[in-house]
């Protein structure tokens, strides 16, 4: 079982991203679940969501405590939330950042998802949308395939810029 924890802020699309990642994994032929952790979220508040991907049925619904991969959609969370909690030494962090970031003892893959959203004008109510481009980054890392990512996105968004965002992230991320 491969477990992902996604850190974001309300309004950035972390929950949608979790659902799209699970759907893409499902299209890859895997079993997958997406579990948003619901608290009393407001716009801008830190939130987490979990994705599990497995070859066999997934019976657990609880929160992911020891993720195999952490996704951080907002780099400012690094200073307020322990995003590395439970991540095994050497584990991977996919971080939305325009600059390389070092996190001692972990493998950090950065992707300028905000930049991609701004270039493509994927902005709603002032928030750059990151929930589709992040799938491109995960595809590059090898968690899901790019084809399934594009299929999952296209089925949920009519605006073709969403698929374009994933493709752009896939092309830009060095994994």
């Amino acid at each position, binding site marked *: 079982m491969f477990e992902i924890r996604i850190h974001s802020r309300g309004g950035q699309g972390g929950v949608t991203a979790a659902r799209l990642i699970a759907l893409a994994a499902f299209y890859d032929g895997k079993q997958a679940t997406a579990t948003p952790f619901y608290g009393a979220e407001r716009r801008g508040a830190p939130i987490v969501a979990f994705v599990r991907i497995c070859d066999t049925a997934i019976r657990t*619904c*609880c929160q992911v405590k020891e993720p195999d991969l952490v996704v951080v959609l907002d780099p400012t969370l690094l200073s307020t939330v322990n995003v590395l909690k439970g991540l095994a030494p050497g584990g991977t962090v996919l971080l939305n950042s325009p600059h390389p970031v070092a996190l001692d003892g972990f493998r950090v893959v950065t992707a300028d998802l905000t930049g991609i959203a701004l270039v493509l004008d994927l902005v709603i109510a002032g928030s750059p949308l990151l929930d589709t481009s992040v799938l491109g980054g995960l595809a590059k890392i090898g968690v899901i395939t790019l084809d399934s990512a594009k299929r999952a996105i296209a089925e949920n968004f009519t605006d073709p810029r969403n698929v374009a965002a994933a493709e752009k992230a896939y092309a830009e991320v060095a994994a």
Partner: protein
Amino acid sequence: MHTIATGNRGVAEAVREAKPGVVAAYPITPQTEIVELIAQYVAQGTMQATYIPVESEHSAMAACIGASATGIRTFTATSSQGLLYMHEMLHWAAGARLPIVMANVNRAVAPPWNVWADHTDALSQRDTGWLQVYVATAQEAYDTMLMAFRIAEHEDVLLPVMVNLDGFILSHTMQPLETTPAGDFIPPLSLPHAIDIKDPAAYSPLTGPEYYFGFRWEIERSMRDARQVIREVEEAFAGKFGRRYGPVEEYRTEDAEVVIVAMGTLGREAQVAVDRLRQEGIPAGAVRLRWFRPFARPDLAGREVVVIDRDYSFGFGGVLAHSLRATTPCNPYSVIAGLGGQEVTYADIAQFVRQRKPGEEFWFGVESHGDV
């Protein structure tokens, strides 16, 4: 269609497939997605029902009762406070012998406000005459909804059915879901006592003690008959769709010396705990109780039992624990856990088994606990 979907969507998709004529509902967290989806299906024309956006849950159930009395298929969905607000009408629906189907997204009861998973809402309605089933996956929610209509409308039952799914943990988690056309799986509803203006009758009039008792007994007789109907409908479902559930779902129980019993998603989480415990050499098994009314009565004789209740009957104990004590020879270790959405992992459940003390009650996360 084969995709991943939330438990709520599993319910809504099944309701669309069951083709009710009237849906009357009031939104409440975490059930809201169900009524939003149904309203959307009706607006799109992919569902032919009349959707009545009532002003309260009491009215939701009253409207379902009025509609069902004409012989039309009806559905509603609610949760927590909404279910409590319906309480009077739940009794009415069952007493009036109307096969209304309802999805209840299990949520804690206030105060204090809490929107997360808890079974107290539904278990407080256990004596209303509704059949109650608890599901654990989006697929099971879909499948059970389809079966619920057929069971409720069966001539030997004619009682309402409540399909329960855990708030957020199941209602909002996306899981694989295969939806298939129901075809003729649910036969057209033929309500024997539907209102007929050519044969006028008084429905539920004032009834003296000499007759009232008989009507109550008829409810119980149908509850008993429902066991067989559930078996038949599950068999028919398995034959048509290839998925089988049963009154309880057993997991590695054949040689189990200690059995974990729970309802809803905790019952499935317990299966992961069983795998862990077996690796440690503890011969554990899990029984996920699906049908609470009529009570499934698992046979636990000769086994140690650890029961997890996501509910509590104050001054008495865990509802499931006591239900088992009353129906099968056992002296369970009664664990009260998961109230108000408290996180309970498979690791926690494995620990419940390791620390079990038959006959005692343990409140997970609470310092002081002891005998009841």
